[in-house]
């Protein structure tokens, strides 16, 4: 595996405020990593350091074995910022020409226009563009240089459900073709759909790092719920009553359901729901603690 991003014991302070503390992680070629954490956790600062927009107070960073921010490193990278603001006087087509001129092997402009759904707006000045239209332009610009790594900071905020789904398909195809992704997002479904690895940061420290499949397998917890009119002792002991349903969580759903049936409990609407990634992460963290 080729390491394309490497952060070793990165710390960053703004005055007295310590934003990152000994943050370390690597991104391998073809890997898709989600950087997670609450607002102010240090995700954007970490991204800025990876891109060479900010300098770390201590620690070492490399991007494609080069200094972050250098032209040699950045020719492999596509970036979409969180709140990119475009001049209302420029058209997407002109911006794509501008971006393309910076790369050795860029995508063709027409490919970008078609792939990112810009055909109807490509030659319109961006005055009055909706948030979704601006977002699509930003994503197209990110891919203009045919990058080996894309850094996506909240890429789909402002996109409608259809736009989000189209975006996820594009990113999945990109990963299949060998591309790497660093993503920050508040949409769990998007994180699960795109990423294979998560790094959770809180107060500047890595509090969780692992593969999504690994986390879900380790947690392996399902939610079991059913409805009944006369709960027996077993139900009362192992299930909680909430909004007309008896629910519990278990890592061994088969065994619990056999015990439930053996106890003679009559029930309807039995549901076995796998835990969401968000719930799995919370349980995984509790287990680690």
């Amino acid at each position, binding site marked *: 595996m080729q390491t394309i991003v490497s952060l070793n014991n990165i710390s960053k302070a703004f005055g007295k405020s310590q934003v990152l503390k000994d943050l370390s992680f690597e991104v391998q070629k073809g890997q898709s990593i989600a950087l997670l954490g609450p607002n102010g956790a240090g995700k954007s600062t970490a991204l800025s350091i990876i891109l060479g927009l900010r300098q770390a107070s201590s620690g070492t960073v490399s991007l494609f074995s080069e200094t972050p921010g250098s032209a040699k490193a950045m020719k492999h990278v596509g970036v979409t910022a969180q*709140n990119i603001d475009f001049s209302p006087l420029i058209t997407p087509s002109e911006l794509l020409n501008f971006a393309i001129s*910076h790369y050795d092997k860029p995508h063709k402009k027409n490919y970008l226009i078609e792939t990112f759904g810009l055909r109807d707006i490509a030659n319109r000045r961006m005055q009055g563009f909706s948030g979704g239209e601006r977002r699509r332009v930003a994503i197209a610009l990110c891919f203009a240089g045919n990058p080996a790594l894309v850094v996506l900071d909240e890429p789909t905020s402002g996109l409608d459900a259809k736009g989000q789904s189209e975006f996820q398909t594009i990113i999945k195809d990109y990963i299949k073709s060998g591309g790497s992704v660093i993503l920050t997002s508040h949409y769990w479904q998007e994180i699960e759909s795109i990423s294979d690895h998560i790094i959770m940061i809180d107060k500047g420290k890595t509090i969780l790092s692992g593969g999504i499949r690994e986390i879900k397998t380790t947690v392996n917890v399902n939610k079991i719920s059913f409805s009944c009119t006369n709960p027996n002792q077993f139900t009362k002991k192992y299930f909680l009553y909430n909004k007309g349903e008896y629910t519990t969580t278990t890592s061994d759903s088969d065994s619990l359901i056999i015990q439930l049936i053996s106890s003679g409990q009559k029930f309807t609407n039995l549901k076995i729901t796998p835990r969401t990634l968000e719930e799995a992460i919370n349980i995984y963290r509790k287990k680690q603690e």
Partner: protein
Amino acid sequence: MKLFLAHLKLQLKKTFRNPAFWAPTMLFPAMFYVFFGSTMSPDGIYSKFAIASFCIYAVVGVAFYQFGAGIAQDREEEFSTWVKTLPASSLPNSLAQASSAIILALGAVMLVIGASHIFGKTQLAFNSTLAVLAVCLLISIPAALMGIALGYATSAKAASALANLIFLPLAFLGGLWIPPIAMPEIVKSISIWTPTRQMAEFAWSAVELKLPDMQYILGLGAYTLAFAMLVFWLVKRDGKKRFG
């Protein structure tokens, strides 16, 4: 070269598609020349000085509004941060900004000279015109430094207001609107210390195809050095704040 042209093209499109920005910067110097300079008596040198003065006014105006307000706005836009993630040094972008300002300034200066031919009672000789153009190029350095300092010292909202607040009094005090001889004594004594006066003295000397007095050569040199140091400090401070 390819990157410089790409940045310049984008910069020029952003500038010239916004008439509210370029029209006052380009047209006002010529317009003010027509109102105030072209009416001067053709006897004596002052009517010719007026042409040179409004050329300087045009260059300083572009520096304040293109560099000052433009840089302040760029600093606050996420777009300029995104541009920094492209595989290029900051050189093509800086050169494109400077070139775009020079194109705008040259346009404004040519309009003043054109206006003097259409509306003026007197015109500059060909040699004097070339000398004034050379001075415009020379003073574009300290003028640009003043503009850059303004752009890095203030927010986008404050920059335009501050540019008006500094530029107009400086233009008046420097003798760009009325010749120093017509100024009240107190204004005259302040005038010789202003950067715009140093610039104007260069332009007026160029009209007569001679060098300015040593005090103005030293004065302009000192201002250039001081503004360069200020810009160096402000750019460093801004870099630390935004990208440190």
